């Protein structure tokens, strides 16, 4: 028994080391004074200065954030609708096709999705003259298509765990379905919507393959810029950029975790108070 516990503990440590050592090294070497990534030339923030002065990267980063924001908002809207359809409307014609269409983008290799999206845009332009060339718009459309699937999965699991009698009670009291959804269902599934939005935002911010296919000359996103730099080899400037990304993500997750912890505490306190009153 003891030995097994030891083995599991070791496996866990090994796994976490594998996951985190590369990230830690990346951060450490972003403060390296030397251009050679492997030779430690003393502490320096030189590469951060270089990064802040790089207008191309800053423009690309801003564009990526804009695309990610619009994408996450549209994907959350459509994904929530799709989740409602999948959980609440159990029988209708074309349900199999619908659920297949929703889950397929999850596993589809990005390179196929990217090629397919581009060929669609080119064909559409030939047939109806829209979209004119590739731009941020085409990137948003392509990103919504695959991130909406992730939002659907997240919202779907929350929705199917939800107590359906709450909706029934509201309906019995005479509320219309739309009102029931807005007043009862939406607040309950709101955390899943936030999680789905953040997931869609991150996925969009992270995508290089699909964006490479559907971006135009004026719409170079951050991952495309980074990818073309990285293909040429290791550069400390990218380490600095990576460190900033990691810092932002860590702070974001810490804040989200804190909020969730507080809510959980409050809920527990509320439950305790309720049981005391009884």
């Amino acid at each position, binding site marked *: *028994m003891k030995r*097994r516990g030891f083995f*599991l*503990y070791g*496996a*866990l440590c090994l*796994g976490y080391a*594998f*996951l985190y050592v*590369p*990230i830690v*090294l*990346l951060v450490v070497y972003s403060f390296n004074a030397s251009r*050679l*990534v*492997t030779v430690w030339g003393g502490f320096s923030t030189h590469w951060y200065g270089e990064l802040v002065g790089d207008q191309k990267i800053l423009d690309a980063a801003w564009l990526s954030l804009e695309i990610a924001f619009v994408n996450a908002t549209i994907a959350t*809207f*459509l994904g929530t609708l*799709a989740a409602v*359809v999948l959980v609440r*409307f159990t029988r*209708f*014609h*074309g349900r199999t096709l619908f659920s*297949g269409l*929703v*889950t397929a983008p999850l*596993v589809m*290799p*990005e*390179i*196929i999705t990217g*090629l*397919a999206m581009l*060929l*669609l845009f080119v064909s559409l332009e030939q047939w109806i003259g829209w979209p004119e060339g590739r731009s941020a718009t085409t990137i948003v459309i392509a990103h*919504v*298509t695959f991130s*909406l699937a992730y939002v*659907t999965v997240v919202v779907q699991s929350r929705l*199917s765990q939800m107590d359906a009698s709450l909706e029934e009670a509201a309906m019995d009291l005479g509320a219309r*379905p*739309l009102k029931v959804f807005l007043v009862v269902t939406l607040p309950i599934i709101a955390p899943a919507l936030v999680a789905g939005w953040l997931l869609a935002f991150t996925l969009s*911010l*992270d995508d*290089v*393959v699909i964006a490479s*296919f559907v971006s135009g000359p004026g719409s170079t996103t951050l*991952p495309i810029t*980074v990818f073309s730099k*990285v*293909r040429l080899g*290791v550069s400390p400037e*990218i*380490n600095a950029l*990576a460190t900033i*990304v*990691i810092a932002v*993500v860590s702070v974001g*997750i810490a804040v989200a975790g804190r909020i969730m912890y507080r809510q959980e505490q409050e809920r527990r306190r509320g439950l305790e108070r309720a049981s005391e009153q009884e």
Partner: protein
Amino acid sequence: MSPQMPSRLMGRTEDKPRTPPGITPRRHFFDAALALRRWGRFLVGLPPYVWLAVFFLVPFLIVFGISFSEVESAIPPYRSLAGWADGAVLEIRLNLGNYRYLFDDPLYVHAYLNSLRIAAVSTLCCLLLGYPMAYAIARAPVAQRIPLLMLVILPFWTSFLIRVYAWMGILRNEGLLNGLLLYLGVINEPIQIMETDVAVYIGIVYSYLPFMVLPLYASLEKMDLSLLEAAADLGCRPFRAFLSVTLPLSVPGMIAGSMLVFIPAVGEFVIPDLLGGPDTLMIGKVLWQEFFDNRDWPVASAVAVAMLVLLVAPIMLFQHYQNRDREKS
């Protein structure tokens, strides 16, 4: 949700005269409300359905179509399938040459087999590393499970590109790993890891590990532990109990996790491009080169169609288990 809906609505209103006179008009009101709700449902489903049909289903039909086309030096660089011959007769030209080319050129066959091999080996490594992790998390005290799981997912929220890039600095000949091994005296000269298949395995395992751990954790966590107690009561050793109780019960999780790693790994492009060498042929890389370097869109489409055919079986398997899971819950 279906085109039948309006006709159903009609059917309901036609029922009106047949209602026995004793029943109040409330009944009609109820019917109308029901019909309205059906319409409401139709409207809810419409936006995502239309979006996915136009931007996901149609593109694949177009890829399929263009794979039968021929390359042309025009914009766009392929010949359209249907044309007007002599201005009056509709002519449809299908060209199977692209597919024949895929089978004739050993490069493509080799790339396909290599992709399958690399994806399979990486999936296996992911399983070997991910299973003990998922098991350890699922058997940890309840309060620790979510934080431990969060630690697995956390790297996923940072950029995928950055995580692959991190390994470039570690695996290079003059990289940190070789530096460490040289310093420790394990090796006398740098070993070549970068630009080999091993580097690609490491990259894939590193990037996709959370996708393996999560479904495994889900299936191990909901397992009924009294089954293990029963096995122990019947004189079963812990290891034996693991093999004959826990392992079979976690098969759905293993399949879901493996598919989530295997399918995208087959089509992976960024990892073999950054970590692999020129010999590391993978189908995603070949497609990219056909499209961006050779500008041969029809052949790229044929490569994509062939890749999809290859992935249909694993995708169906994944969906099958997904649906079964969903119906259970």
